[in-house]
């Protein structure tokens, strides 16, 4: 279980995240929605321990992290058991997409089973461009590569930041079907997305974040029956925008 308790993050005098509580069970898909600047990406960075929260606790399976983290103590993050796909993707530009996917395995001298590799390549429709470099493919193709790299690491918790932002509707539909398949394998996921339909189809739980705090959370039914005026206003705005 990935559990955040009373998690807070401050930058200077600004409170970016405030008293956040959330739990991601293995095999569960939790979606975070909210307006720009709500703190979604900061939350993802804190949960992945790329950013150290300034207060609160984080528990990743048996391992506990209490913040503020002592300056003289090295924080050993549980990567890649917990891993992230960033919105900006961060593929290594000197390697082909195939090498990008396989390098973490090659470095650890543990190659993923060919069956898993082929399955991911098939689902994400990557066979045609696997041997190209990141700057020789489209944003959507890069996005699929970053996703494939993370999935093949067999994480227990996968944090995904706007992974559909560069994908067309057909690819979004494919991934919408693929994420529950990953969840069935026991991978707990946290998705940050602005696509409400994507959230409706994939989520077990939805969190609505605004000004660094969770305003409303619950099952995906909150997307059709919001309780708070903030989420209602956000959904109305999202409907107009779409």
């Amino acid at each position, binding site marked *: 279980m990935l559990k955040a308790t009373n998690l807070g993050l401050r930058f200077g005098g600004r409170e970016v995240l405030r008293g956040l509580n959330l739990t991601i069970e293995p095999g569960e898909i939790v979606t975070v929605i909210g307006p720009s600047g709500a703190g979604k990406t900061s939350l993802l960075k804190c949960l992945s321990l790329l950013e150290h929260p300034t207060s609160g606790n984080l528990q990743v399976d048996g391992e506990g992290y209490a913040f503020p983290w002592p300056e003289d103590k090295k924080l050993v993050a549980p990567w890649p058991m917990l*891993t992230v796909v960033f919105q900006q993707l961060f593929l*290594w*530009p000197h390697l082909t997409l195939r090498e990008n996917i396989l390098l*973490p395995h090659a*470095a650890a001298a543990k190659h993923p089973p060919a069956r898993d590799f082929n399955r991911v390549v098939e689902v994400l429709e990557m066979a045609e461009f696997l041997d190209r470099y990141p*700057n020789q493919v489209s944003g959507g193709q890069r996005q699929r590569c970053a996703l494939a790299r993370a999935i093949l690491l067999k994480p227990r918790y996968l944090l995904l930041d706007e992974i559909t932002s560069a994908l067309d509707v057909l690819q979004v539909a494919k991934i919408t079907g693929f994420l529950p398949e990953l969840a069935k394998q026991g991978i707990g996921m946290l998705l940050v997305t602005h696509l409400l339909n994507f959230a409706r189809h994939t989520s077990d739980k939805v969190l609505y974040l605004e000004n660094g705090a969770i305003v409303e959370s619950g099952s995906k039914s909150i997307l059709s029956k919001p309780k708070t005026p903030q989420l209602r206003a956000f959904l109305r705005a999202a409907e107009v925008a779409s």
Partner: protein
Amino acid sequence: MLMTALEIIWEYRVAFGQGLLVTLQMSAIIWLLGIGLGTLLGWYAAGHTSSVGRTIRVVAFVLSGVPTIVFLFWLHYPAQAMAGVVIDPFYTAVLTFVILNIIGVSDIVRGALEDFPKHYAVAARVCGMSERQTFRYIQLPLLLRGIIPGLLMLQITMLHTTLFASLISVEEVFRVAQRINAMIYKPVEIYTALGIFFLCISLPVNGLAIYLKNRFTRDVSER
């Protein structure tokens, strides 16, 4: 003219050979110490941007405004007079050019390290790669792609700079050429011969720099 140049090279092959040996000795020391110490200094400076990094930037900026020959003369005459020592001109020249090379190399290395996009390393770490693996497979190859062509071009420049050593009586190949010219007065042929020497050394290094640039520094920016 080329034939005459080759004939002169052959006739004075012993003198040219000795001069060339001195030039190559100087270059080897300048390259080895410059690249080795410059890389270490650049590395250290990148990790200490507020202290060493700033100092190196200032020194590089100042030295870029001082002609090499002035710096060489300054170390050869006033600096030694002030210190009350007499140093062999060969070592004075080597010291001068090593300092310049160290500063140049460290500036290239420091710049490349400071500009290195941190997110590539972050992506590696969240994929479970250790710091050492991240350095070996991600940072080092990307850094070398950025550094090597500039570094090789700087070394060619340093090779050419060794000509200034003749001005403080170092018996390197240019001084040998001057002496031969004083005896037979055939400047066109002699300096053509000298050009051939430098082309023979510079072209392979230049070719390597171009090869590495084409091979490794392809445009990696995303569309």
